């Protein structure tokens, strides 16, 4: 049985439908992420699970029990807020002891459990400090310790890393994964950062306009986006619109707008062979494109020619923006893996691109 079930939940604010008939299940011990642009309904959904808001219709069921009418304090669910929401008038120890005191834990048990929680987040020496005396990363860890100290069934995290700088963020991501594995508590994580969603989660629900566009493992969401929104929102993606000209046994031929003719394989999920005349979209990740000054495409490759419009040197990789001769603008990624000084293409250089027939993911319609 799933730990948490969301059944046909909707929530409307005036004219705005924040959550539109959403259903999903989260299993025990899972690291589940709701990702989407701001206003997609992910935070509203989280607040309804926490009990700060109620669904207009539908049910939220935790361990088989309908949570309707259960106030936040009676739910075995804790939240890590974006602002951390540490009580400024209490020390770190008092903050972490708060949920234990509310749960009427015996006094002689509170001390060791607070100490243990501080140990878990490696802040054993900071117990007597006040929140304002801590760094952002430390506050984050106190918020985690406080929310986990009496082992809730479910931990909700609302963009907990949004306020941290990039370096600290990556470190905290690793700590989060480790912490979740150690304590075994189910995490539901809300973020607008698709990279974070991919890095942390067992499963991701991509939300937009109050509905779930796709719910799957990170590699499936990235590799086989269900529609144009998911392809575009998760990672960087070339979206090439085109018309099917002929269909074969295992692949088909497309006339891609502004690019030219290319062979492609049917949608990996539906496996439906498109019919000639049908429109569709070929999604292709920049790292799946080969880019070279001159190249002879292999038999299983498509190719096109163009000129470098611009490039972004990112250290590990370089992103090239290429204007194809046929008119389209595409993005290709080249790893800077060669030893010695990497040779770049300059702006205006003529280049050729090539990609395998099965490199793209075709979206019907």
């Amino acid at each position: 049985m799933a730990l948490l079930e969301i059944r046909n939940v909707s929530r409307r604010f005036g004219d705005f439908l924040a959550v539109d008939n959403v259903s999903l299940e989260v299993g025990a011990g899972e690291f589940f992420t709701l990702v989407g642009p701001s206003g997609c309904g992910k935070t509203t959904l989280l607040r309804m699970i926490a009990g700060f808001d109620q669904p207009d219709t539908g049910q939220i069921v935790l361990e088989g029990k309908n949570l309707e009418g259960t106030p936040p304090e009676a739910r075995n669910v804790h939240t890590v807020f974006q602002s951390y929401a540490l009580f400024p008038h209490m020390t770190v120890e008092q903050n972490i002891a708060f949920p234990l005191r509310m749960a009427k834990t015996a006094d002689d048990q509170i001390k060791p459990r607070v100490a243990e929680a501080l140990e878990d987040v490696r802040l054993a020496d900071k117990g007597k400090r006040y929140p304002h005396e801590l760094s952002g990363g430390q506050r984050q860890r106190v918020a985690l310790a406080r929310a986990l100290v009496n082992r809730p069934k479910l931990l909700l995290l609302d963009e907990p890393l949004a306020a941290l700088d990039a370096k600290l963020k990556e470190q905290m991501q690793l700590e989060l994964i480790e912490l979740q594995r150690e304590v075994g508590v189910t995490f539901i994580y809300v973020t607008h950062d698709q990279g974070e969603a991919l890095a942390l989660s067992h499963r991701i629900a991509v939300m937009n306009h109050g509905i779930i566009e796709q719910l799957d493992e990170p590699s499936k969401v990235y590799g086989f986006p269900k529609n144009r929104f998911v392809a575009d929102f998760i990672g960087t993606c070339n979206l090439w619109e085109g018309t099917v000209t002929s269909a074969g046994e295992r692949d088909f031929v497309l006339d891609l707008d502004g690019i030219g003719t290319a062979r492609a394989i049917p949608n990996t999920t539906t496996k439906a062979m498109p019919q000639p005349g049908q429109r569709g979209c070929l999604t292709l990740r920049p790292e799946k494109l080969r880019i070279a000054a001159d190249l002879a495409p292999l038999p299983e490759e498509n190719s096109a020619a163009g000129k470098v419009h611009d490039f972004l040197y990112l250290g590990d990789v370089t992103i090239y923006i290429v204007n194809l001769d046929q008119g389209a603008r595409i993005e290709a990624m080249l790893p800077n893996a060669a030893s010695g000084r990497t040779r770049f293409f300059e702006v205006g250089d003529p280049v050729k691109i090539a990609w395998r027939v099965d490199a793209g993911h075709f979206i019907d319609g």
Partner: protein
Amino acid sequence: MAGATRSNSATRVSRPLLGLSLAVYLFLYIPLIVVIVYSFNASRVQSGEWGGFTLDWYNKLLHNETLLNATLNSLIIGVAAAAIATVLGTLAGLALHRYKLRLLPVLVLAPVAIPEILQAVSLVLFFNAINLTLGMVSIILSHVAFCISFVAIVVRSRLQGMDESLTEAARDLGATPWQAFRMVTLPLIMPGIIAGALMAFTLSIDDFVITFFTSGPDAATLPLQIYSMIKVVVTPEVNAVSTLLMLLTLILIIIANKIAPSALQAK
């Protein structure tokens, strides 16, 4: 070096503006300084001559039954009015913050803007209508009426500066609404409540207009007593008692400002 000089000259105040602000400050503070200085003047006449330093007038104050009585009245009224207004004003501030109704702020905050004389007259009429004899009780009720708004403003501004998710976090971690209020909200708005209480006390202690209208024949407060004294002649005792009153007010304002810097801005 050159850079530093330039930035200095950029922030330098122009001479005419400096002169003007000095003149304004002198106009504001010279009368107060005169009162303080003359409270230590040994000469009885107020003609301006200096008769040497003395503490006689302060000593005389201690033996002036009428003034002491008025002071006691003022303190009783101030403490009672501040206590009641703080409780009611805090509740009003919480309500203003929680319920975003359009009419509520107007109703709670209007007394700040209504002319005092108008409030005074309406209170007298009200007390007559309910057959309440004018005296200490009517003064306290009147002071409560105009202090509530000030307390509410300070408490609300304190709440507005508070992270909304703190209360939610308390609930989330197992606190009932009442526990969340008592253990998180209340301690965090306490500086605002204390500042509001001090302000209410200050406003009550030196109120004249409303007190004048709502006091009975035998419930004179300090400001009323001072007024009746200077109607006859300005005695140095008045200077002394005014100086003390000024000192008390100043201390309270400074404390209030220390506790909640936004309190005085709200006023």
